[in-house]
């Protein structure tokens, strides 16, 4: 014989667990994917600053290099666990002349971006 209060407790527990199961997909979707990004500087220009931005926006975040630089001729840096708001992220590298290089990186897997002298920097127009 199951008492009425036990039935009520089981019902509440059922609702609670059901809610958690139903919310799991939403929770996993709210968690932004992270990715590792390696920038290799094979160009002859020193990279002084590095920023991230949503690909379709010009909302650059803080400088990722602080006072460090990515040396010309093969210097590199790997940023791990870069949080993505969407499926991709825009990486902006700024050289010693204040010119920019842009690269959109897919999130969820490690990426390497190699900057070479063939890339055309955006120095303004």
């Amino acid at each position, binding site marked *: 014989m199951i008492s009425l209060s036990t039935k009520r407790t089981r019902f509440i527990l059922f609702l609670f667990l059901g809610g958690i199961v139903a919310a799991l997909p939403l929770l996993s979707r709210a968690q932004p994917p992270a990715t590792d990004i390696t920038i290799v500087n094979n160009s002859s220009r020193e990279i002084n600053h590095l920023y991230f931005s949503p690909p379709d926006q010009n909302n650059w975040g*803080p400088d990722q290099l602080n006072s460090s630089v990515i040396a010309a001729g093969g210097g590199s840096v790997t940023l791990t666990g870069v949080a993505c708001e969407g499926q991709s992220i825009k990486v902006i590298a700024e050289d*010693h*002349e204040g*010119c920019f290089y842009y690269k959109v990186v897919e999130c969820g897997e490690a990426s390497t971006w190699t900057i070479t002298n063939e890339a055309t920097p955006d*120095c303004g127009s």
Partner: protein
Amino acid sequence: MVVNGACGSVIRAATLTVNTAPLVTLNPVSQTITSGNVTFTAAASGSPAPGGVQWQVSTDGGASFSDIPGANNASLTFATDPSQNGNQYRAVFTNSCGMAITTAAALTTCTPPVLTISTSNINLSPPNHAYHTFDVTDSVASATSDCDGNVLDSVIISSVSSDEVEDNPTGSDGRTSNDIVIAPNCKSVQLRAERDNKLNGRVYTITFSVTDSAGNTTTATAKVSVPKSQGGGAAVDNGPGAGYTVDGNCP
């Protein structure tokens, strides 16, 4: 005068004086003054010469006038203040034959317009060399004149300065020129979102000016900053002496 008589005549000269009422020969002229003294002058002829002059003031647009105590000279001089704006002044000349009244002269006492800046510092980011347009109304909340009322439409951008040079060949500010472009009508300016990444951020200073109908000019400034990077601290204004200034070509 000749008196005829049987025994001869007597001839005696006499002067006939015909008196005339005063006639205004100089009316006072309306004046606009920003501060200090104002002088109105009037004159009249007549016979006998008008011995009395009395200046009068109207504070109701000329509907009625009242005597100004002690104002009995051909010129009326007094210190102005804004409360006298719109008053009218006239002179009354009198002699034994009558009187004459000048036309009224208006006094306009304008203080310089008041410019109110709504946004004293705008951040421009990211520093990707892109132009951003700023209109007068983006920074100026109001412009008022006690002579002309709302003069917001008369506000112009008179100059814009940058605390960094336009293009430093050995610097880290890209390779651009014309970072400041004031529109031909001086109602807007294009500013390039750019800074030298070796310095402390760029600060543009926009100078707005407005001139009222009395010729009084008021200026005010607003800043547009390009931080070195997000989270890297606010741009530091090193003053226009460290950079350059572009002047608008509007009167």
